[in-house]
């Protein structure tokens, strides 16, 4: 028995139907349906027709693929409108000046004017690419926006790109280059091109294969990024700029940026690749790894002041005099605080670390059932919280786990459901939420009698 498709049945066709047959069958049935009064019937027919057309295209494509194993996304093949236009190639290339005379329109209607729009599009793109480096390095280019836009528009709206075919080729090349990752100037180019080529329209990039699909994700990321509170957005943009320029960074800055940048990589991965470049992020990550992770040690200093000191040293202090020992330890602690703790504290202050008791006034109760496998003790989860304009929690993200996912999630959920914070609360702040876990009751025995 043959495999049958519902949509072919509905159109009264069988498996050897071609596109022409499908269209004819659809046309025949359409004429017997009253579109206004039989919407359901029309929709069934229409859905079947569209499925059948897709199936036919797939069938034809599969047949083509056997004959031709060329890369579908090869830019020159796929986006060359002349490849389709060869049927018109016999028509003479009409001089542009003929266009100025209105009476010239009627006799020549329908004839192509330009012989090779693809070549024009490619040439225009080559020009942009050649100049992009110099444009990016131009002193006027950073960080001002306006001169950049003007300069780039000259390339993107060049006179020869009025031809839609030429433009499409230009755009295709641009999409591929942008999707390949950041290069100097691409950050601005991405924004300007998005406006010029209408990339905010979800479907405009779908034409350009996998590169288009990737860039489309970057555009979605960018529009979500624009929803962030402007002040915070500016701060993030400055960090992105620092990543791009690979400006020498000190340990303090490095640690201050860590949460934000890693969060950006999670939330806006495609945007980061296109406007910052993954290699720049990797470079930054490598630099991070050169510095020992002082933060973790300092946090212990904070809670148990004497812990980082070597034990023999403490022993010696005790052996001398209690008073001196304590004062020495205090001085040491002060030095510690002055050099290291201060630098560690800064990011928290800038972001505003909201104390737990303040937090608990606003957040919903944490619904957490102690898990049997969790050891009794203090569970601490670190989160980063974003507020929207009305000071409601827009988003809460976990930046440091307590070790128990269920607990982390329960705290995050409680924050998500929090009542609005008072005016003046920073739009973004860190939270360290801690909870004492009591020893769990032993789980009831689940042994089945045997």
């Amino acid at each position: 028995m043959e495999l049958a498709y519902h949509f072919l049945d509905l159109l009264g066709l069988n498996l050897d139907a071609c596109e022409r047959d499908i269209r004819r069958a659809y046309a025949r049935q359409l004429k017997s349906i009253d579109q206004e009064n039989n919407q359901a019937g029309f929709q069934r027919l229409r859905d079947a027709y569209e499925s059948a057309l897709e199936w036919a295209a797939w069938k034809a494509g599969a047949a083509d693929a056997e004959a031709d194993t060329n890369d579908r996304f090869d830019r020159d093949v796929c986006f060359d409108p002349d490849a389709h236009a060869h049927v018109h190639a016999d028509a003479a290339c009409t001089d542009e000046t003929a266009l100025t005379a209105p009476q010239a329109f009627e006799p020549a209607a329908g004839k192509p004017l330009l012989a090779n729009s693809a070549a024009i599009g490619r040439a225009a793109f080559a020009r942009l690419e050649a100049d992009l480096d110099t444009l990016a390095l131009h002193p006027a280019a950073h960080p001002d926006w306006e001169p950049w836009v003007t300069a780039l528009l000259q390339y993107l709206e060049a006179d020869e790109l009025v031809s839609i075919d030429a433009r499409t080729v230009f755009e295709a090349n641009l999409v591929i280059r942008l999707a390949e990752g950041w290069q100097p100037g691409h950050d601005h180019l991405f924004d300007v091109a998005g406006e010029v080529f209408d990339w905010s329209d979800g479907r405009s990039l779908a034409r350009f294969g996998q590169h288009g699909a990737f860039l489309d994700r970057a555009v979605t990321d960018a529009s979500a990024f624009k929803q962030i509170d402007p002040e915070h957005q500016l701060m993030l943009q400055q960090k992105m700029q620092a990543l791009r320029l690979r400006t020498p960074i000190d340990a303090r800055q490095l640690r201050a940026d860590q949460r934000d940048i890693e969060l950006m990589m999670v939330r806006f991965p495609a945007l980061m690749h296109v406007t910052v470049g993954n290699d720049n992020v990797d470079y930054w990550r490598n630099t991070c790894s050169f510095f020992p992770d002082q933060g973790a040690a300092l946090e212990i200093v904070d809670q148990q002041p004497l812990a980082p000191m070597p034990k023999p040293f403490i022993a010696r202090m005790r052996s001398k005099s209690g008073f001196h020992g304590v004062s020495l330890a205090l001085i040491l602690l002060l030095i510690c605080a002055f050099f290291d703790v201060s630098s560690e504290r800064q990011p928290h202050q800038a972001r505003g670390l909201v104390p737990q008791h303040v937090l608990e006034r606003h957040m919903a109760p944490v619904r957490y059932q102690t898990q049997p496998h969790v050891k009794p003790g203090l569970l601490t989860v670190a989160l980063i919280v974003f507020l929207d304009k009305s000071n409601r929690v827009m988003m809460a993200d976990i930046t440091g786990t307590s070790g128990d996912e269920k607990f982390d999630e329960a705290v995050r959920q409680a924050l998500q459901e929090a009542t609005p914070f008072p005016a003046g609360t920073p739009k973004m702040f860190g939270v360290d939420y801690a909870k004492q876990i009591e020893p769990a009751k032993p789980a009831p025995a689940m042994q089945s009698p045997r």
Partner: protein
Amino acid sequence: MIVGIDLGTTNSLIAIWVDGAARLIPNCLGEVLTPSCISIDDDGTFLVGRAARERLQTHPHVSTSNFKRLMGSDKTIYLGRRAFRAEELSALVLRALKADAEAALGQPVLEAVITVPAYFSDAQRKATRAAGELAGLKVERLLNEPTAAALAYGIHQRDGDSKFLVFDLGGGTFDVSVLDLFDNVMEVRASAGDNHLGGEDFVAALVDRFFETADVPESLRADALFMGRLTAQVEMAKRALSEAPQALIHVSVDDATYSMTLDEAMLEKHCAPLLARLRAPIERALRDARLPIAQLDSIVLAGGATRMPLVRKMAARMFGRFPACDIDPDQVVALGAAVQAGLKMRDAALDDVVMTDVSPYSLGVSMAVQVGGNALSFGHFDPLIERNTVIPVSRVKRYSPINKTQSSIDLHIYQGEARMVIDNIQLGVLSIDLPPHAGAGDRDVDVRFTYDVNGLLQVEATLVQTGVIHTVVIEGNPGLLGKQEIAQRFAALSELKIHPRDRMENRTLFASAERLYQQLRGAQRQQLGFEITCFETALASQDQRIVVPAAVQMRQVLAHFNRQSILLPEA
């Protein structure tokens, strides 16, 4: 009898399907184009059409035009002391057209197909429908303008297979449609447009230019009389440029004369930003139709503004080939509306023809999206009906509440193409109460969007578990008239006195003469003044043997002065 009406920003037309062809019906002046202008005459009667357009210059405070651009809004337009809505003014135009058709057909006309720009929103469509009702017409169908143009073309080539693009630049709107014709099926593959781009914008750009070049004091912008005259002059000069290399614009006010010479290069330079806006809708339509330009059999022009050589040149450069305009671009939309009327009446000549249209924009709801594992990102647009889906269409999608604790879902309904709803147009909100959470998926909601052939949307939400249905009535839009209000306004409008049709011809002639008299200076003015007095005397006699030759004389005089006032002698 169903008539087809093109209710345009600048001009309106009416046509019928008769003896297997679409025919335009001329108005009482014997012209097929009726300017969409309204004016209240000195005796309190209403003037529609050319006479009203002339009076825009001589009596700007009691005359108006371009009200189509206000359709669907709650703006009020004042004529003297009387307030009108755009629907009412449109209804007056429709009434005049209806009267013309009734006079020509000798039978009452009660049903119509009215065209709207493809990119008209839900509110604008409803306003157009209300205008029809106010004029005493049952609106059988709202037809997208580019689709109408495509129908007019398609009906001549229905035997073969072809694909073409309609480029419709009217007085106030720009529309693009891609049409696929096969086996007597006319399928609109895609349409796109710009609701605020048309011939009037070119005029406005040139008016701005005039203020700069001719050193006109900015205070004159508030002078309705001056602006009315200037706009008319610019419009005439713009038209004259289709035939002559140069045109002169000159306007006098309070003994000061301002003038500017307009040529093609200047027009091109100052209209470049407008021309650039033509591109986006074209690219969008082609994209959605998934057709490369090379596969199009022709590019078809519609809309009066495509007469401008500048626009044609732009189209030719964009498409890389010359566009076709076998049908008069001013008339093509009305002819298409008549074809649709013929289809509605199931005319034998159209027995085998079907047409399918598309929804011009995406419709959907606001949704939260999970990003990066466990964070939520709010305000994403999730389209249920993608733009350029063949209509009628009905689509269902299932949504769940974000939180287990929430007691209701607010379904925000949007229209638009942006990814974030903040950049789209909100159509309404549907609030659905949820039962308390009990188990997974027990509080899911099925949302159904239904979009009909007239482009009107209905939203229905069903709670899956209980089957409780909520239906949205898209309300809270200040631009819409309620049923009761329509009935009231219909009664009020019916009482308005319209200038008698049989006297319209001479009334229009007189209005033109008055307009020209204001424009001229010196000896020419004196000469025209004398002619006007003669004409007035002849009219007063009410003797057709005297009136008819006087009207002929008047027309010649006007033609003479009109020619002189606009064209420069060729160098």
